[in-house]
């Protein structure tokens, strides 16, 4: 007794193949996704939780991904939405905007503080440690940091970042520019300590 059409098992097999391929591709990207996740949140534990929630959701809703489009951006969109849903936005006082200096501010500070001329390349490495950068980045308010991390650490285009965060591209650019300036302002304090 067979009420199923002959194509059904074939369709099921094809779907299973597509799903497995999707899962493999998503897992291959996990290192890159983690690199971004780690800097969007404050701790390794939070990043790990967020990654697991993201992949669980991605594997559940794999059929809403359009093959051939940017899978890394698709995964990051899930991840940033989950991160926002966690309510971390509430932690930010909306009126608190850090002072924003110009783009030459950090270099000017370093130059002022140096007795001898420094090369532009050495100035960064000699004056700043990994901890300085990581803690300065975590001091950048979330809205700015999200864009900064996606573009400058995740290597996403403005367009991708706009889609991931569901904001206009002009907002991506202005937040990115301001975020970088805020970061440099934070770094300036550390560079001349």
């Amino acid at each position, binding site marked *: 007794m067979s009420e199923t059409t002959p194509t059904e098992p074939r369709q099921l097999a094809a779907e299973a193949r597509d799903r497995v391929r999707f899962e493999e591709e998503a897992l291959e990207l*996990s290192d890159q996704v983690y690199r971004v996740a780690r800097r969007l949140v404050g701790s390794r534990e939070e990043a790990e939780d967020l990654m697991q929630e993201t992949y669980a959701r991605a594997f559940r809703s794999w059929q809403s991904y359009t093959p051939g489009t940017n899978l890394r951006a698709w995964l990051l969109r899930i991840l940033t939405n989950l991160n926002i849903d966690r309510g971390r936005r509430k932690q930010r006082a909306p009126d608190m905007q850090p002072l924003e200096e110009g783009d030459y501010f950090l270099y000017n500070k370093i130059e002022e503080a140096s007795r001898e001329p420094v090369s532009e390349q050495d100035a960064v490495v000699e004056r700043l440690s990994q901890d300085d950068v990581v803690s300065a980045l975590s001091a950048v308010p979330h809205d700015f940091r999200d864009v900064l991390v996606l573009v400058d650490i995740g290597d996403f285009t403005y367009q991708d970042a706009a889609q991931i965060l569901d904001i206009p591209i002009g907002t991506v650019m202005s937040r990115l520019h301001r975020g970088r300036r805020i970061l440099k302002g934070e770094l300036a304090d550390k560079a001349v300590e």
Partner: protein
Amino acid sequence: MRAPGAGCVSAYLDPCDKCEEVMQPYLDRALDEGERAEAEAHLADCGYCRKRYRFEESLRVFVRQVCAEEMPPELKQKLAALRTPL
């Protein structure tokens, strides 16, 4: 160095101020051709701005390098375990 106000109407009296303002879009390759040519003409003449542009490039590379943290191998295994069983 270009005379202030020469060529086009600009809000910047000092060309270095304008060069500072366009540094990020320049390094992101987001300027249009005319703006890029103008920035490059200024950079060719101005060591002050050139130094600061080079510093910015080094800083971006440095930030990217030091912020890159490897994913713990156990996490990769946990993610793989979330796949739908065959």
